[in-house]
C-alpha cells in the first residue's frame, strides 16, 4: 500500500501533498432492556488527499473507492489552485519520519467471535437490570475496532499503523411514577479484548445510583464551594479551557490572540494543565498525529500562567511556534484540525487527599461524574451525574440535577486547592469539533476545589 501511495504522490504537481488511507474493521453489540437490539460487523475504508500549491489554499478530497486515488490526487491539486490565499499558507518544519507502528492490540478483537462479545455485554447489561425492579430500561453497548492506517507526504514521511480501540457503555434508567433518573458507565481504551473483562462492578454501581437518585432531592441552586471529582474535573478542563488552547481559534484572530496571550495569569499557582499525546496506553495516545508530527507532552498552564497552546503545522508556522502533534482527524472523511489528545490537570505535590479538600468546607457541593458539558467559549455549563452535599467538612446526602455554570476565567481563578490523587479517566465517547465527532480523547485530574461556583438545579424557581 505504501508503494502505491508513494507512486500516487509522485504524480502530484502541488508543492505539498499528503495522502491517508484507512481500513477499519468494527463490531458493535447493543442491548436495550433485556433485548439484543443489534449485533453488527462493518468494514469501512477510504482515503483522503490534501494538497497545497504556493499561494493557494488547501485542496482536499476524500473518497471511499480506492480506484479513485490517482484522480483524487489530481482533483485536490486543482482545488488548491482554485482558492488563492494571501498571505500564503505556510507549514512549520517537521523532519520526515518513517515508522511501522503496531500498537499493542492486547487481545486482537478481530479474533474474538461476535457471540463472545455478545455474552460479555449481556452480562454487564444483566448486572444493571438485576439491581432493582425500578430499573425500567437499560442501554448497553460493546464496540470495538481495529484500523489499519497509512500516511505519506511529499516531504518523505511514511507511516503505517495498526490502531485498536474498544469501548463499553451502559445507561441505566430508573423510574418511579413520573420521576426518571439515569446512571451512565463508560469505558474506552486504545487496547483490545483483554482490557474489557471483569468490568461488572461499574455497571452495577451506576444502576444502583440511578435508583438512589429517585429519592434524592434536587440540589438547591446557589453559590457554593464546589469539589469536582477527577472525572468531572477532567471534563471541565477539556471543555472549558482545552478548546481555547487550540491554536486554530487564535492564530488569525487578533482579539482572541490577545485574550490568550502567553504569560497571562489564568489561575492560582497551584494550577498546572497540559496535553499529552504520548502518554502510555491512553485513548488519545498515538505515536504521530495526522500530519506525521510526533506527539508530545505540552504544558499549557504552569503555576497558573498560560505557557503554551496546541498546534498543527499551519497554526505553528503562522504564530512562529513549534508544532505539537495535535493535528487530528476522526477518519479519512475529514481534514486534520487542531485537537486535544489526553488533557490533564496535574496533581499538586503535597496537595493531599479528598478529605483535606473538604475539611474546612462548611456547606458545599461535591459534584461527581459528567452527563455532559458544553462551552460557549468563556461560558460553560456542565451536568454532573450526581452530587453530594458537604456539611461541616463531611460528605452528606445525595443530590441530583447538579448543573455547574459559569465564566471560565473567573472559575479557573477560583480553583484554590488541588489534590494529589491524580487519575486518568478511561472513558468512551469522544470530543466533537467542527463536525468531527467522536474523536478519542482522555482527560485526567485529581480532586479539584473551586472556592465559589454557581450550581444550578432549581435556580430561578420563583
Amino acid at each position, binding site marked *: 500500500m505504501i508503494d502505491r501511495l508513494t507512486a500516487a504522490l509522485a504524480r502530484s504537481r502541488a508543492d505539498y501533498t499528503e495522502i491517508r488511507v484507512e481500513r477499519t474493521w468494527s463490531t458493535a453489540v447493543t442491548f436495550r432492556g433485556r433485548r439484543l437490539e443489534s449485533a453488527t*460487523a462493518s468494514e469501512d475504508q477510504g482515503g483522503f488527499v490534501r494538497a497545497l500549491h504556493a499561494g493557494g*489554499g488547501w485542496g482536499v478530497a476524500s473518497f471511499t473507492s480506492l480506484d479513485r486515488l490517482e484522480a483524487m490526487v489530481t482533483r485536490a491539486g486543482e482545488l488548491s489552485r*482554485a482558492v488563492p490565499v494571501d498571505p500564503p499558507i505556510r507549514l512549520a518544519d517537521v523532519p520526515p519520519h518513517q515508522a511501522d507502528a503496531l500498537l499493542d492490540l492486547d487481545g486482537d478483537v478481530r479474533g474474538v467471535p461476535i457471540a463472545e462479545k455478545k455474552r460479555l455485554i449481556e452480562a454487564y447489561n444483566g448486572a444493571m437490570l438485576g439491581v432493582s425492579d425500578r430499573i425500567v430500561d437499560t442501554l448497553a453497548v460493546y464496540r470495538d475496532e481495529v484500523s489499519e492506517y497509512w500516511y505519506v507526504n511529499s516531504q518523505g514521511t511514511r507511516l503505517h499503523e495498526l490502531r485498536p480501540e474498544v469501548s463499553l457503555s451502559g445507561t441505566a*434508567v430508573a423510574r418511579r411514577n413520573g420521576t426518571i433518573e439515569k446512571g451512565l458507565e463508560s469505558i474506552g481504551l486504545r487496547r483490545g479484548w483483554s482490557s474489557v473483562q471483569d468490568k461488572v462492578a461499574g455497571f452495577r454501581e451506576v444502576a444502583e445510583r440511578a435508583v438512589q437518585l429517585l429519592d434524592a432531592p434536587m440540589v438547591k441552586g446557589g453559590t457554593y464551594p464546589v469539589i469536582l471529582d477527577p472525572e468531572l474535573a477532567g471534563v471541565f478542563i477539556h471543555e472549558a479551557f482545552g478548546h481555547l488552547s487550540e491554536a486554530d481559534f487564535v492564530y488569525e484572530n487578533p482579539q482572541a490572540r490577545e485574550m490568550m496571550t502567553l504569560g497571562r495569569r489564568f489561575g492560582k499557582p497551584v494550577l498546572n494543565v497540559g496535553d499529552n499525546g504520548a502518554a502510555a496506553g491512553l485513548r488519545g495516545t498515538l505515536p504521530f498525529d495526522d500530519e506525521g508530527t510526533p506527539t508530545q507532552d505540552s504544558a499549557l498552564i504552569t503555576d497558573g500562567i498560560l505557557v503554551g497552546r496546541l498546534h498543527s503545522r499551519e497554526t505553528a508556522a503562522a504564530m512562529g511556534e513549534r508544532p505539537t502533534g495535535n493535528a487530528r482527524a476522526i477518519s479519512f472523511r475529514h481534514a486534520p484540525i487542531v485537537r486535544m489528545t489526553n488533557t490533564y490537570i496535574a496533581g499538586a505535590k503535597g496537595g493531599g487527599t479528598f478529605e483535606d479538600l473538604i475539611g474546612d468546607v462548611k456547606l458545599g457541593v461535591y459534584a461527581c461524574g459528567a452527563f455532559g458539558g458544553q462551552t460557549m467559549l468563556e461560558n460553560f455549563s456542565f451536568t454532573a451525574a450526581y452530587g453530594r452535599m458537604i456539611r461541616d467538612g463531611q460528605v452528606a446526602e445525595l443530590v441530583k440535577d447538579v448543573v455547574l455554570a459559569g465564566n471560565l476565567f473567573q472559575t479557573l481563578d477560583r480553583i484554590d486547592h488541588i489534590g494529589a490523587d491524580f487519575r486518568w479517566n478511561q472513558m468512551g465517547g469522544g470530543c466533537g469539533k467542527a463536525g468531527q465527532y467522536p474523536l478519542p480523547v482522555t482527560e485526567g485530574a485529581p480532586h479539584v476545589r473551586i472556592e465559589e461556583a454557581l450550581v444550578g438545579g432549581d435556580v430561578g*424557581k*420563583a
Partner: protein
Amino acid sequence: MIAQLIDLARRRSDGGADALWRRFERTTVAFEWGRLKSAGTTEEAGANLRVRHRGRIGVAGTTAVDGDVGAQHAAPLLDRALASAELGETLDLEFPGPPSPPVPLPTVATFFDRAANASLADLIGIGRWLLARLEREGCRVNVAIERETTATRVANSAGAEGEYRGTGFGVSADVWRIAGDDVLVVSDAFEGADLPSDAALAALVASINSRLDHALRVVAAPEGALSVVFTPAGLSALMLPVTQGLSGKAVLQGISPLGAKLGEQVFDPRFSLADDPLRGGRPASRPLDDECVPSRTLALVETGVVQRFIYDLETATRAKSTSTGHGSRGIFGKPVPAYTNIVVSGGAQHAGPVQLGGGLLGDIRDGLLVDELIGVGQGNVTGGAFSHPVALAYRIERGEITGRVKDAAVAGNAYELWKRVGGFGNDARWTGSRWAPSVRFEGVSVARR
C-alpha cells in the same frame, strides 16, 4: 444492482431482506476568519443490507462498493448480514410489498439542477458576497458553503422499491466579536435543496446583523418568573423533549411522558406539529423512506392534542402498529425512526420584514428574548425539565430590546410551559429541518448570577 443483492439475499435468507444503496458527492468551500482558506470534495458510496433469517434480524454495511453493488460485493455483504442474524434479535418483521393495485410514489421536488450544476466559482462567489456584508470593525467572520448531490436506491424482497436523486445546499456564517474577555458569536445558516435565492442570502445577513447590533450593549439580567420569548433557533430547548417524546422508540421504552396521552390535550390549543417529508425544496424530503415505505405528511399534534407517534418498521412491529414512513438508515447500523421536516404551526405569517422577536415583545414590561442556550440536549431531556445558561439572549423592557444579557439562566419544564403559551410570532422560518415561529411562554424562571 441493488436488485441483485436482494435476489441473492432472497435465496439465502428465509424471512426476506431489504437494502439501501446511497452515493453522494459533496463540494465545500470554507472562509476562515475572513479569508478563503480551502476547497474540498467528497465522494462516498455504500450499501446497507438487512436480512431476516430463522426469525432473527441481521444487518451489515459496507463502503467497499462503488457506482453500484456488484456481485463481488454482494456475497461478502450478505455473509456478514447472515452472521449478524445468527445472534440477531427475534422479530416478526414483515417487509412491506408494493401497493396493490400499484400506486406511484408521491412526487416531491428533491433535485435542483441549479444546485447540482453550481460551480466552485459560484460557491466562492456566495461566500464573498456574504463576507462583504458581514465584516465590521472588531469582528471576524467564518463562512462555509456546501453543495451535495445524492442518489438513493431502496428495495426489499417483497418487491417494493424506489429511487431518487437529491441536492442539498448549505450556507453558514458566524461573526465573532471578542472584546477583552467578552466573547460574542452570532451565527445563522441557510439549508435547502436548491441554490439560495438572493432574498434568502439577504435574510441571513439581516438576521445576523440585527442580532449583533442588539448585542453590542450588555445590560443586567432580569430575574424571576417572567415572559420569555424563544426565537425559532432558541426554541430547541422546548422542542427537543416534545420530538423525543413523540418518537415511537421512546414510547416503546416507556420513557416518553407522552406515551399514554394519545388523544389528550397536552399543549396549548394553538399548537400543532407535523412531520412533512413531502415539502418541496427541503434537503430532508424524499418520496419514500429508507425502508421502502412511501412518504406522507403526518400530523403528530393537532390543536394541542397528541395524534400520532413516528415509527419505523421495527418499532411499529414491536408496538403492533404500522410504520409511519420514518425509517432512516445509514451505511452502517440498522434503521431507526427519525424525523424529516418538523413543522410547527401556530401564529400568523408575517407581512413585511421580520422583526427580532416575531412581534411578541410589545406588551412585555420586563422579560427575556432567548436565541441560544448552552447545554441543550444534556441531561434528562425526555422528562421535560431543563435548566440552561444563556449563550445569546436579550433583555426586553417595556416592549423593546434594551441589550444583551450575559449572566443568566432559564429553567422550567417544557411540558408545563407548552400549556402556558403567550403567543406565536409572525416570523416562522426554517432552522435546520424545523419550521417554527418565535414562541412566547409565560412564567419562565430566569435566574441571574
